[in-house]
């Protein structure tokens, strides 16, 4: 189905910068509300720092709860950027164009949010300084470089740095457009950020090469980040269900599943909020949903491997853990919720073409996926720790406190708020990419039918 409409270059500039130069009342109400939730989160975190971790539901033997679950969740969301932007750029998928910026921006903000989680979880975040400046080697107060917990910050920082660079390189032509349409201080800032961009052939060539090179470089980083996060669990021998060889790819594909779903949700919100119907079209939703079917099914395969091979050896503690996850309340409800919302509802719905082109249903199903994926991380982390093990003198459940719930809620508000605020300073659909898509679009007449086509230059 041909949904593309021809739009002039100047109209593209006007349309895609509308989020910067025009603001509706609704936008500010939404930002204000989200800021309020974030403020509540900061207050709760401050309260926790003041009173100690006792105000959370964390207690022996469950010392990893909502914060670590949320850390893994946001790291997962961050995988959307590279998956959509780098991979689809490398394979020259035309339908990537309106999705890349939102995906990259979501990567940066979700990574930043993810990184706050271990700091908050530490209870006394200033002690992270000991990692950089260990003050007493003799007492062993220094990071153990052989631990995956230490590799984590390195990987995440590298990913954040490269993601910011990735976003920035793609933004340079758009900064130039904004430079030419602003005055005063914004003009000065955009002038600096646009690095003297004039849109010459050489500059475009360099920008494209840089984008491709960064895409190729960032891919191994993207894989390493969630792999290392998975090894936080996989290398732990003392917790049943964590020591699994499949964890690394299982975490990565799960991250892509939740990340791409989040991008779809964000795209639908942007389309609705900024009236970008001519840019974020139903055909893009259709393609993204098809991609999600493949990703979700691959994820389900890895989940099945993880679960099945947990039982494979029929070792008592492992079987008991699986029974806890699947048959005992409340875990069985979480398990059921996770499975139904992350696969059993969305994927059969995406198989129906009309659903793939229905924005409401796409928003609904992609939000469902992320509800399920959050629960997935939760039931991986907490039940394993709850299980009675040798030499553990206390055991029990985990109930998150209101402090944890408030902080977690605030992280969702923070990412949403940051994306919305970012939309006030840069276009969330790459202007250059949108124009290139228009130029490369063509049609071929076959019989009596005009078939959409794309120009492809090697």
């Amino acid at each position: 189905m041909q949904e593309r409409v021809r739009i002039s270059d100047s109209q593209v500039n006007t349309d895609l910068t509308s989020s910067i130069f025009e603001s509706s009342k609704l936008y500010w109400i939404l930002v204000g509300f989200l800021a309020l939730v974030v403020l509540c989160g900061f207050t709760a975190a401050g309260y926790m720092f003041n009173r100690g971790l006792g105000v959370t539901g964390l207690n022996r033997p469950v010392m990893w709860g909502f914060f670590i679950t949320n850390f893994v969740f946001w790291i997962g969301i961050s995988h959307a950027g590279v998956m959509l932007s780098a991979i689809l750029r490398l394979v020259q998928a035309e339908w990537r164009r309106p999705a890349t910026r939102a995906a990259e921006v979501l990567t940066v903000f979700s990574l930043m949010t993810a990184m706050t989680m271990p700091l908050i979880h530490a209870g006394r975040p200033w002690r992270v300084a000991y990692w950089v400046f260990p003050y007493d080697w003799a007492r062993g107060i220094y990071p153990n470089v052989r631990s995956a917990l230490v590799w984590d910050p390195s990987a995440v920082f590298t990913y954040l740095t490269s993601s910011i660079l990735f976003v920035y390189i793609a933004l340079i032509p758009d900064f130039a457009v904004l430079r030419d349409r602003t005055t005063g201080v914004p003009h000065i800032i955009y002038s600096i950020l646009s690095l003297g961009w004039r849109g010459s052939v050489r500059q475009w060539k360099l920008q494209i090469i840089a984008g491709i090179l960064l895409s190729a470089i960032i891919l191994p980083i993207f894989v390493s980040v969630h792999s290392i996060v998975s090894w936080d669990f996989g290398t732990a021998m003392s917790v049943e269900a964590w020591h699994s060889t499949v964890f690394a790819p299982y975490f990565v594909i799960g991250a892509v599943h939740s990340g791409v779903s989040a991008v779809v949700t964000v795209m639908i919100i942007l389309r609705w909020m900024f009236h970008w119907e001519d840019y974020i079209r139903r055909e893009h939703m259709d393609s993204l949903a098809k991609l999600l079917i493949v990703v979700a099914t691959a994820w389900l395969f890895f989940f099945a491997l993880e679960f099945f091979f947990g039982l494979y050896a029929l070792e008592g503690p492992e079987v008991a853990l699986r029974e806890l996850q699947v048959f005992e309340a409340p875990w069985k409800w979480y398990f059921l919720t996770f499975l139904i919302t992350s696969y059993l509802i969305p994927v059969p719905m995406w198989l129906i073409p009309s659903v793939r082109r229905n924005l409401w249903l796409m928003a609904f199903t992609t939000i469902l996926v992320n509800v399920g994926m959050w629960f997935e991380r939760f039931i991986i982390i907490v039940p394993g720790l709850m299980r009675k093990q040798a030499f553990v003198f206390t055991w029990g459940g985990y109930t998150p406190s209101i402090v944890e719930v408030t902080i977690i809620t605030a992280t969702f508000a923070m990412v949403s708020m940051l994306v919305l605020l970012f939309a006030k300073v840069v276009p969330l659909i790459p202007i250059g990419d949108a124009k290139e898509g228009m130029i490369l679009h063509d049609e071929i007449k076959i019989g009596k039918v005009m078939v959409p086509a794309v120009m492809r230059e090697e």
Partner: protein
Amino acid sequence: MHESHHVVAPSYLDMTAQEITNDVLKRHHSPGNQFWTIAMILGGLFVVGLVGLFMLIADGFDNKSAWGYYAATFGYVFSLSQTAVLVSVALRMAKSHWRRPLARISEMFAIVGVYSFAMLLPLLWVLPSIEGRRSLWFEWPGNTPHIWDTMALGSLVICGLAILYFASLPDLVTDKEVSGKSDEDVSYHPLIPHWFGAPKHWQLQKIVLGLLGGFYFLMLIIVHMLISVDFAMALIPGWKDAIFPAFHAINGIQASIALIIVTMFILRSRSSLGKYLELEQFWALSKILLATCLLWFYFWWSSFFTYWYGRMPAEIGVLKYIMFETYSTVFLLAFTMCFVIPFLILVVNVVRKTIWGPTLAASVILIGTFFNQVRYYVAGFSVEDHTLHVLENLPDFTAPGPIDFMVVVGGISGAVLTYMLGTRIFPIISIWEIKEGLMLQRVRKFMKRDIRVLAKPE
């Protein structure tokens, strides 16, 4: 290559549909003396393999270690042939235009699936009962894997043949019409029903191929899991590796792409099919091959790292057995030839964008994959007591004897011969897909340059 254009445009764009039909069918009907000479040699080697197989059977099925190399050859043939069909299925779903000349080359391996199924049958007598040992089938009756593995592989083979049949149907009809044979002449392609290329027929063919492709993909992953676990992992005490089935599948995908590249190279040089099998096909496949090489390493690393870091006796025993002590040389060969060498070849852009570069890398991968199968299947069949939970004493390395050489050479020769004989029934180049490509591709002027336009119909 289309020398007159700056872009990579297939040479067949200069031909008419009728010229393509005549050209492909002419080559199909006159394979040349060299074809039959090679077929005779392969037939001779196959007979040698059969003699080896009879000698194995004469020695009985109790000495499992004697069957190790036969099992490795089966694993190799199964992995390559059955997974090769997936390449065509996946590329057709992705609507890649460059797939057209290689689609049939890939699908034709479905015929070799019948041969791999025949190879499975003697192994069923060697495979020990699952009673008292770890298995995928837990507490099911002892001969469960024998029944289900046979049924699963059989279903996969039938599905593969169905894909080949439905994908070849238009070409078989074309062949019949060009040859001027009547409908009553059943000696000529008796498989052809009443196909005359009505729109309804094409729609039906598209739907059937789509459904069969989806089913084939799911079945293939399941069969990889069943074969790899039942015939390798479950036979080695202490080996509980959730990623292994996925690793086996990714190695199969990697090797099958390599196999298609090598087949294309042979067809290009020996059957003068250079105007269809051009640089574009090699280049496109080499990118996927590079990705699979990296995935090979990533999956291997995920498994190795989790085991090595954990230091559990059972897992270290497995590492010593199949990687670092007993089968260390075989592992080193597999690692070097499946990852190191092909990666170094394919990572260089200018080498990847040649015909010889990907072919060289693919040839190395094909050898490396065989070593990889040896370290799993031979190692698995060499363990005497499968009921143990830990490899307390590492079994000795099973060196190949004369019978093993006969079985390996004969087994692989038989597979190649089966493929060659298949080309006598089905044209090796998919005529209808090439002709469809003629309709959906154009070369147009764009800013003083010739550029390729690709139609993307729904």
